[in-house]
């Protein structure tokens, strides 16, 4: 073992950061205590004065390129056990031979991957040999040389070793059958990291149609590839795959998702326009259409309102400057905005609430809730009143709401509505108990008094007397009711 290596060994051991050790039986892994020490020893890593660009592979060996590829180099003095971990060895002939693992794969290994030093090899081949080699140079190499492929592991062992973070060359899995056996082994091994690694290899070495075809019957592997493509952002390949699988809805959604990355609103709008034709379900198509229309509207409203605000001509914008732009907000927020700033506009304008309501088929309930919240915020009690007032054909007015009046009360209260306004709605709450509790809570004395009177509950009414101010009109009212001989009290 060279000195450098020995130093490295020491370094690993001292730092507890032994990423992966070669000895399978070494199983101290990462005990919790060690984890603690590991962080404490961070300095060892950071302070490492070794100026060489130290590259460490999965095995902890210095390597030149991605670990499981064939290009890897390793110091030839590595001990035999460690040697197994590396891929193709350099300086082949002098290298110790390793037994081949499983015979069933020896056939395919005859057709195995390209050589480490192709030009050099073929040159020497050409010098020393004749004939056949030109057709099948690989076939003709001395048997001993194959042993240089030190990791002739069976697919199962390859997977096992990869699961344990060890270097394994996949390049020798060249036949489709070999690749698939390897993939199936990876899936059977339950380690997603290895499954993905194999898929990366397959993706690189198989035409996509063939890969897709094989994955179609391998659902677990398929999930891994889809997830991998999503994560790496290989959108085009992902879409091809989904199309191949006839998952048209996912194709559409996957394309639609891209809009999230578009910051510029104009571009986003254009993109969404393009999404409308995608193969969504009928239901989703209308959502996408709405999304596009909404953004289109918002762009128009935003341009107008910014102008209005800047010019300072509109009172409402002067009084309540906008806190944020309306772009990319949900529909309900947009409706609120429009009820706040554009309530009285005629239906013809894009920014009018009625127009929004019609265009997006906003249900009554939703509309009333939002309009109520907006008008209450502005303390426009007249508008609130109008929202619930309906006239019948005889001209009588009546208050009606598509939501419970207790909700109305709650929203009004949150916006600090005066008692006079509140009590008008509290007394419309149908459930007597809720009405009483709301009225008591918000000090709508008249409602409380009337309700107790209707309930003919003398005890409660008497008790309530102490809740009202002494000498107030309310107290007087209670007294007069209590003195009313015509009421038949229940208690």
């Amino acid at each position, binding site marked *: 073992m060279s000195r450098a290596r020995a130093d490295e060994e020491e370094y690993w051991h001292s730092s507890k950061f032994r*990423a992966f050790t070669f000895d399978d039986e070494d199983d101290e*892994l990462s005990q919790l205590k060690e*984890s603690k020490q590991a*962080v404490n020893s961070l300095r060892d890593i950071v302070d490492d004065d070794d100026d060489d660009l130290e590259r460490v592979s999965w095995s902890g060996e210095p390597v030149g390129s991605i670990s499981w590829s064939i290009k890897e180099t390793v110091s030839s003095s590595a001990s035999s056990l460690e040697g197994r971990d590396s891929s193709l060895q350099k300086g082949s002939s002098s290298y110790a031979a390793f037994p081949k693992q499983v015979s069933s794969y020896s056939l395919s290994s005859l057709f195995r991957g390209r050589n480490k030093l192709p030009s050099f090899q073929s040159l020497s081949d050409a010098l020393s040999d004749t004939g056949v080699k030109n057709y099948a140079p690989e076939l003709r190499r001395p048997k001993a040389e194959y042993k240089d492929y030190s990791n002739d592991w069976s697919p199962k062992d390859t997977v096992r070793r990869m699961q344990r973070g060890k270097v394994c060359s996949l390049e020798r899995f060249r036949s489709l059958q070999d690749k698939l056996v390897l993939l*199936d082994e990876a899936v059977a091994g339950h380690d997603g990291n290895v499954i993905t690694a194999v898929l990366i290899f397959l993706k690189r070495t198989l035409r996509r149609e063939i890969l897709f075809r094989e994955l179609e019957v391998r659902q*677990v592997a398929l999930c891994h590839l889809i997830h991998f493509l999503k994560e790496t952002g290989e959108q085009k390949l992902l879409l091809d795959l989904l199309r191949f699988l006839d998952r048209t809805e996912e194709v559409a959604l996957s394309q639609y*998702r891209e809009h*999230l990355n578009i910051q510029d609103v104009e571009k986003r709008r254009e993109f969404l326009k393009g999404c409308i034709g995608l193969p969504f379900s009928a*239901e989703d198509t209308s959502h996408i259409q709405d999304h596009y229309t909404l953004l289109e509207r918002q762009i128009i409203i935003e341009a107008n309102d910014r102008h209005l605000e800047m010019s300072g001509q509109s009172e409402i914008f002067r009084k309540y400057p906008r806190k944020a732009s309306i772009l990319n907000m949900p*529909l309900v927020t947009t409706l609120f905005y429009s009820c706040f700033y554009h309530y009285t506009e005629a239906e013809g304008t894009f920014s009018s609430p009625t127009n929004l309501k019609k265009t997006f088929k906003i249900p009554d309930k939703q509309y009333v809730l939002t309009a109520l919240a907006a008008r209450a915020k502005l303390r426009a009690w007249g508008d609130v009143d109008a929202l619930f007032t309906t006239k019948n054909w005889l001209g009588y007015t009546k208050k009606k709401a598509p939501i419970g009046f207790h909700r109305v009360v709650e929203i009004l209260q949150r916006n600090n509505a005066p008692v006079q306004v509140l009590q008008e709605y509290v007394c419309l709450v149908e459930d007597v108990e809720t009405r009483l509790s709301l009225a008591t809570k918000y000090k709508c004395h008249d409602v409380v008094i009337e309700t107790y009177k209707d309930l003919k509950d003398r005890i409660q009414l008497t008790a309530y007397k102490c809740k009202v101010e002494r000498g107030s009109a309310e107290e007087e009212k209670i007294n007069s009711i209590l003195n009313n001989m015509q009421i038949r009290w229940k208690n």
Partner: protein
Amino acid sequence: MSPLDRIANVSILKQHEVDKLYKVETRPAPSASDQFCFLVRPRIRTMRYIADIVNADKMSGRSRKYKIIFSPQKFYACEMVLEEEGVFGDVTCDEWSFYLLPLDEDIISMELPEFFRDYFLEGDHRWINSVARALQLLNSLYGPFGRAYGIGRCAKMSYELWRDLEEESEGDGQGRKPEIGSIFLMDRDTDYVTALCSQVVYEGLVDDTFRIKCGSVDFGPDVTSSDKSIKVLLNAQDKVFSQIRNEHFSSVFGFLSQKSRNLQAQYDRRRGMDIKQMKNFVSQELKGLKQEHRLLSLHIGACESIMKKKTKQDFQEMIKAEHSLLEGFDIRESTSFIEEHIDRQVSPIESLRLMCLLSITENGLVPKDYRSLKTQYLQSYGPEHLLTFHNLKRIGLLTEQAAGETLTAVESRVSKLVTDRAAGKITDAFNSLARKSNFRAISKKLGLIPRLDGEYDLKMPRDMAYVFSGAYVPLSCKIIEQVLERRGWQGLEEVLRLLNGHEFSVSDSTAEDGAAAEAQRVVLAVFLGGCTFSEIAALRFLGKERGCKFIFLTTAITNSARVMEAMSEARA
């Protein structure tokens, strides 16, 4: 608090000459240091971030040393990205096999919240190896487990992979005296209902309200009644917290006020003291009292803040709706409650959670309701949530009832595919289709809704239902209880069928015989995809009742909001 804070805080890192700490975010770190060390989870996004830094340095001719430490392990895909970005040789990589973080005396977390989405939504098996290694580690520390039970596909795979590792290593654990009697592995998708419920035990409520991160919580100014926030470690060491954590919220007030009265009394004792007694008091008791005083005031502050927030949110009404969903009563009413919740633009996560709860207890929403709720949701919270709905459908959390006939036909076909695991061709893609929740039937079979005769006394709970105000026994915990009681799955066949199976039960007779009686009563409950504080409280209760001790290993602590957020497609 991050897992790193639990192990090495800033001052320790400083002592080891770490110049500055940065969060790996989208912005590059503006450091002048010539050595960077990235301690990261193996994520593609993070690799790109690092590659950008390295490449930017290269462009500006700056030379630095870069080290990436992957925790808990390196992924091949990450290396691929480094290679593609042309920085492979420029950075050195390492692994920190950090699997277990003990959050408390009985809770170990792997701190892998991404496990949930990666496995259950994307069908990616990348973390199974980590789970297997965590088990291996526990096994080596505490000896072999006598019995192993499990339910769920991931549980089974993790178990198999772990056995594989174990056989190969002829582990250190073999010679040890077993300290853990049995282990129970459970997939989160066995029971989504429990994870979706509002929590009402104190610890769960604190998690739902303030978010406990890594066993620590940030109490803001509204709790501390000062102008600064305080970070508090919540664990068994906190004398006040440890007594209320498992209690139903309603009994917490009483406890705290009793406690303050006692404290007052102890302070008051000093009045009649002579000098010597006073000296004793100051030197021996005062510090403890002060400490207790500080903790008491914090938890009282937290309770107040919780109360304030919950009253504002109609918590009472929400709990009522939840309970009717669990019991299957007044579904119409609950549906309109959810609708109103959405229309009023109350928290998007809460609305989504309630919809999922409705779906999963009802085996999917009636198509008409599904469409209308979805439309209103998109209108209230943004059209891009179309993607969220798609995710929820795929994972089976929010589905639309299909016409009876077709589903059963598809189902039978799918279940055949699913059980055909010969070639490892398990069909995860059909996961959601295959997983009909069957909650109502399971609930009936296992008696999850306690029949009420009179009030449920939350101060003197009689079963695990107390963690949900006596309205519901958490399914996950009930399964564990039943299996431990029966020492296997016998007699639970019908439940298993409804749960979609994938159960196992293995006993290691040598380990079982070798274990001391006390060790045999220790149960390691492993939750794959996260467990909630309510479940922990329920099992602690069960442990007390049955004379056993539960230890929890979870991929992460979860709650309904985290489950929903994992499914949500964020605005870019």
